[in-house]
């Protein structure tokens, strides 16, 4: 075997175990569509979502938890199908697991303290997770989406009168849905 053949073997093997970005794109798309749909439904039909003291809380906890179970199942299934886990993929997975945990903690703390809605705190954590993901995988659209979401959160602190549901729609659309679409449609080249 010549040196060139050995280098080709190494190169080909590395190429065949590259990080697949499609599952991450699918996750962002799924959560983008889910949160925007939930926010819009809540905005247009508040009487249905807020028919009792705890109904909106159940609405904002139960559906995302189902979403979490579904995406966890999807990610495990996709991982089995791909057959390997890259270091990069592992780092991104840990970031999103930490975000999921922080989301649960924000909800739990707001329940204990009797805070009306932890939307801003959740969006802040989400923006940080997006910026980190974008920088790690070197995908500008996600980094920009995360920064835009961060700007929405900061803007809300300056102008506190904004509607949380509409802010959710704008923030998630720019932070998750649009970057998710571009990542999902991104053609992975060798």
């Amino acid at each position: 075997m010549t040196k060139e053949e050995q280098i080709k073997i190494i190169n080909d093997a590395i190429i065949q175990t590259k990080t697949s970005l499609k599952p991450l794109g699918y996750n962002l798309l799924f959560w983008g569509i889910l949160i925007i749909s939930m926010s819009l439904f809540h905005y247009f039909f508040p009487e249905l979502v807020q028919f009792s003291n705890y109904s909106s809380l159940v609405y904002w906890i139960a559906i995302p938890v189902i979403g979490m179970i579904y995406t966890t199942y999807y990610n495990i299934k996709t991982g089995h199908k791909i057959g390997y886990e890259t270091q990069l993929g592992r780092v991104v997975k840990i970031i999103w697991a930490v975000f999921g945990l922080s989301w649960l903690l924000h909800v739990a703390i707001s329940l204990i303290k009797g805070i009306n809605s932890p939307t801003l705190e959740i969006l802040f954590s989400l923006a940080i997770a997006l910026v980190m993901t974008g920088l790690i995988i070197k995908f500008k659209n996600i980094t920009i989406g995360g920064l835009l979401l961060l700007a929405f959160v900061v803007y809300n602190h300056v102008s506190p009168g904004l509607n949380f549901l509409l802010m959710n729609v704008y923030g998630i659309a720019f932070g998750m849905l649009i970057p998710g679409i571009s990542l999902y449609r991104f053609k992975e080249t060798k």
Partner: protein
Amino acid sequence: MDKLLLNPIRLKIISSLLGVSSCDFNHLQKVTESSKGNLSVQLKKLEESNYISISKSFKNNYPNTSCSITKLGSKRFEEFFKSLMSLRK
């Protein structure tokens, strides 16, 4: 040069495991384009030399073999690659 890595199948295995935290048997078979028996033999040789670690588990009731590169394996590959590049110059 490391004689263990002069074998193309073993070189493919080590190269595949470089950037991953774990990789299953089926994917390695796809990358190496070798038979199950041959791949098992080469994996065993690499494991015996502490270049890789192998863990066996069950996935959907089917046995699953997962491999990952060790620190020694990474170091040996790095040395191998450096000597390969120096010989190429």
